[in-house]
């Protein structure tokens, strides 16, 4: 996932980001279970949770935001780079820097907005309208934390890229910032489909 020459600090940070996305992923699994439970309870046992809509919404919010940093570490955030790929290595390295700076600027605005939101909900003691009356600052605070974590990993990448640029190592920058190509994504899908032992098909057995 990360190049072999990754410094240990970087590894630890990447590990943390991936740990957060693992939590985000399992939140989705839990969410599926909760909704399924609600469906079964409603259809067969005559009751239903009165907050599934709200809780699933928060699960999605947490899932999105806590997966952001891990997705960055796994180079999943999409860029359109038709021109980038065709440039010589040095200008390409500087454009990577530009991408990081704009991403940080954008995330800064988003972070300001969500912190404002949490503060607002806290100050006005806002609750949701579900039966659980959840204070909104709780899910919104968790959501904000995920965005701050993404800012953290982007900052770390920025420091790394600036250092490499100052050291006159554009190839290093390009290696760090290299985007995941469609073919790499494909490779992962293929790996996943072979994760299980060879199938009966390969043995040519009919059904």
């Amino acid at each position: 996932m990360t190049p072999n020459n990754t410094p240990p600090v970087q590894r630890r940070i990447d590990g943390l980001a991936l740990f957060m996305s693992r939590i985000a992923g399992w939140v989705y699994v839990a969410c599926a279970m909760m909704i399924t439970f609600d469906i079964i309870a409603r259809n067969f046992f005559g009751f239903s949770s009165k907050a599934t809509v709200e809780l699933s919404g928060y699960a999605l919010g947490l899932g999105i935001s806590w997966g952001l940093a891990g997705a960055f570490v796994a180079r999943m955030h999409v860029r359109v780079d038709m021109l980038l790929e065709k440039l010589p290595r040095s200008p390409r390295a500087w454009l990577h820097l530009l991408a990081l700076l704009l991403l940080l600027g954008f995330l800064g605005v988003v972070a300001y907005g969500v912190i404002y939101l949490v503060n607002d909900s806290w100050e006005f003691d806002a609750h949701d309208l579900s039966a659980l009356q959840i204070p909104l600052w709780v899910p919104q605070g968790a959501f904000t934390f995920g965005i701050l974590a993404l800012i953290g990993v982007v900052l770390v990448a920025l420091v790394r890229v600036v250092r490499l640029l100052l050291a006159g190592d554009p190839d290093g920058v390009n290696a760090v910032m290299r985007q995941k190509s469609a073919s790499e994504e494909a490779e992962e899908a293929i790996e996943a489909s072979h994760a299980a032992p060879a199938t009966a098909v390969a043995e040519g057995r009919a059904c």
Partner: protein
Amino acid sequence: ADTKPLEITAVTQVGPLFPQYTKVDIPILRDELQAKSGGKIKVKLASYPEMNVGGPEVLRLLRSGQIDIGAVTLATASGDVPLLDGFDLPGLNNSIPQARKVADALAPFADEKLRRLGVKLIATYTYTPQMLFCNRPVTGLGSLKGLKVRVAGPALGALVESFGGQPVSLAFGEVYTALERKTVDCAITGVGSGNSAKWTEVSSSLYTRIISGATAGYLVNLSWWTKLDPSLRTMINDSLMKVQEAQWKLADEATQDGVDCNVGNAAKCKIHALATHPMTAVKSNPADDATVKAALTDRILPDWVKRCGPDCGDIFNRVVTPVTGVAYKK
């Protein structure tokens, strides 16, 4: 002197074709106010979808000063100001004039509490009241026993439970399919909103008892309002007062019209869309009265006071009890 006119941004109503928008807001709040001001006021008016927002966002838009005037159902803000739920607790108002009386009684208290959010309540209005849409025959709330009913919020849930029904929480956008596929047997919403969401296509019985209201308000950004030039403020206030009267009158007409349109009574259907799959109207059943009243006083009202604080109970008894005869017992 040729000064720049005051530009007011207002976001009101759930759809650009809603009668509350086309018959009241556009002619009075926008056109008439502009004309009367003699060029001193310019109104930029839009409905929710035109600004790509929903009710809760309108409230936030207003508070953060993106817009100056906003119209939202009071329930939208009840997570922040629980008193607002007191305007239309399920079972409290069984007619539009009755809902108006309660709104007038509670409005000053609501305004007081809303100041905390940086907004001011200037005028009230109402959407068409909430009724029961079912995809099977019903004779009243008594038929809800064992049925799955989509409700928004715990108070309506309590009412449904007191009749032995099972309240279900579903996103509004999923209710159409849920009624069609019989995921739920019934759903409660405004008789007009059910019409515009085309629930008539997927449900057969409309129980015409008013189950709950949908009182709403015209709110303004408080700091904008206080900084306004006093003569302009009076002008805007007068306009909103006129809007208030027009909206309550419209609501009274629209309630019956909503029923007529939903049951396919073409001659009387003027405001809403005539249902292509007419529903059957079921008259309000007096047998429901006792249970509704008990649910209100024993469960819904105490739950609300618990959420809202003891002073809500006092306010209720002081101003709402005289106009409804319903009292909160500690």
